[in-house]
């Protein structure tokens, strides 16, 4: 390998000296930009982490609320079903009373209030 010519070495040194201040300023600017980017990145990561924590908390809260609502809705439905069944029974009972009243009315030709009699089973004897 041949040695580098004297003229080339001098030219290289000259150019280096000439460009050094420009390069230093450029590097400094790049460093500043990089610092800014790193800071921005950290902030964004922090914001995203906080967002994720919020979302996690929300998921837990929402699912827990769903569970509670599901339970109360089911309990309410069951209470309504029970009330519905009770009302249906009551209606059947009332209809039966009216039917017996009509029967008695037809038999004796007069309106009779038999509610108490029916309830004490007088008519069934």
């Amino acid at each position, binding site marked *: 390998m041949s040695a580098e010519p004297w003229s080339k070495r001098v030219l290289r040194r000259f150019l280096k000296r000439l460009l050094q201040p420009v390069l230093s300023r450029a590097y400094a600017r790049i460093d500043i930009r990089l610092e800014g980017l790193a800071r921005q990145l950290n902030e964004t990561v922090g914001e995203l982490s906080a967002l994720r924590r919020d979302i996690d908390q929300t*998921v*837990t809260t929402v699912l*827990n609320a*769903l*569970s509670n609502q*599901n*339970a109360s809705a*089911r309990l309410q439905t*069951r209470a309504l079903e029970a009330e519905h069944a009770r009302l249906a029974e009551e209606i059947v009972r009332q209809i039966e009373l009216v039917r017996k009243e009509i029967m008695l009315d037809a038999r004796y030709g007069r309106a009779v209030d038999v509610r108490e009699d029916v309830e004490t089973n007088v008519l069934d004897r």
Partner: protein
Amino acid sequence: MTDPGPDLRIALYSGIFVHHDAVSNSLQSKVEILESLGARGARIDLTVFTHASDYRAPYIRGVPTVADLLRQEAFWSADVHIFEFGMSYELFDSVFVIPPDRPIMVVEHNTTPPELVDDPAVKLGCEAALVQRHNISRAYRVACASELNLDLDLSIGVEEDRLCVLHLPPAHRLTPVARKGFGDNNGPVHLLYLGRLVRAKGVGDLLKAVSSLWGCGDDRFVLTLAGNPRFSDEMVLRELHRCMERFAGLEKVQVVSSPSDEDIVDLFHSADVLVIPSYHEGYCVPVIEALSAGCYVIGSDAGNLPNVMGGLGRVVPTGDVPALTAAIADFVSRLRPSSDATLDTTSTVRVPTDYGELDYAAWLAVVAEHLEDYSDDAYERGFIRLLAELAAASPAGLSQRLGDLISERTAELTRA
């Protein structure tokens, strides 16, 4: 040729998955059955999601929150989801985000009524479980560990056609082979209590009962209490220490803290009677284990105890200390009519059951019949039948291979 993929992807869930815990054992039994189907050629992808575990296996994922669960690929890709439920746990709320075409099965273990719990944190968990139990409405199938649990789910409006009973198998391998009769060990009659040392288990009543008998000079029996002090009530532990101090030097009470599996097997084999005076039991595995070991049972009539005892032991009213005392005294008197009674009498000892007074051989025969429904085989048969139903209802469907393997295994278990 492209990989056809697994026959089924299964996600299993439990609040905790630890040794010496009934709910965890239920999960472990399922894992073992699925692994044995895998060994036969089924391609099953299995993932266990839990808040905490002391088991170490690659398929176990510790997920602290339901949000973490939702970030798991195995959660979204699972074809079927199987939840163990007793105490409230956050992961169980994920039933509301599981895609509706993926069938869910819940294993109902029951919950201790909050009014019987003293520890404030546990009490809160029990209260939350009463609300969370309604999540079961999302389940395609509900496998109840006991008849009592089935009634519990019926009472909250779960449709009967989705419910079935799947008795848990014993956690330990026990046989009565070494026993010749009731009370065939030398020395005093051995009473055993196994479980958490908490008020709900009636430990205080048991201590009162034995103390009153020892206080009257009855020296024909001793008591061993085995349980994990970590899951015990301070108040009950204080009662226990008072009892031990009162009878110090007489070697009446022995406490086995956090017994190992081997210890538990030894305890059942050396005990004459298991005493379980609980105020609540959703299932009670120790009764199955006691009967499997040829050990008589005295229990209260709380919760599932009468069902699991099957009329083969002595049932006393819950919280009735005089009745419990009388039942213990009666059993001890049958085994040791006097304090110098020897081994020769054991073959003629008869014990009270719902089938009349039976000697040991007759009792064992009825016990064996009762335990058939509580065996490993019965559990496996029931679980793989449910698995086939779940697979068939999932988008993956029941593959020919898995279907054939389940049929083959069911036939083997039925023949056995």
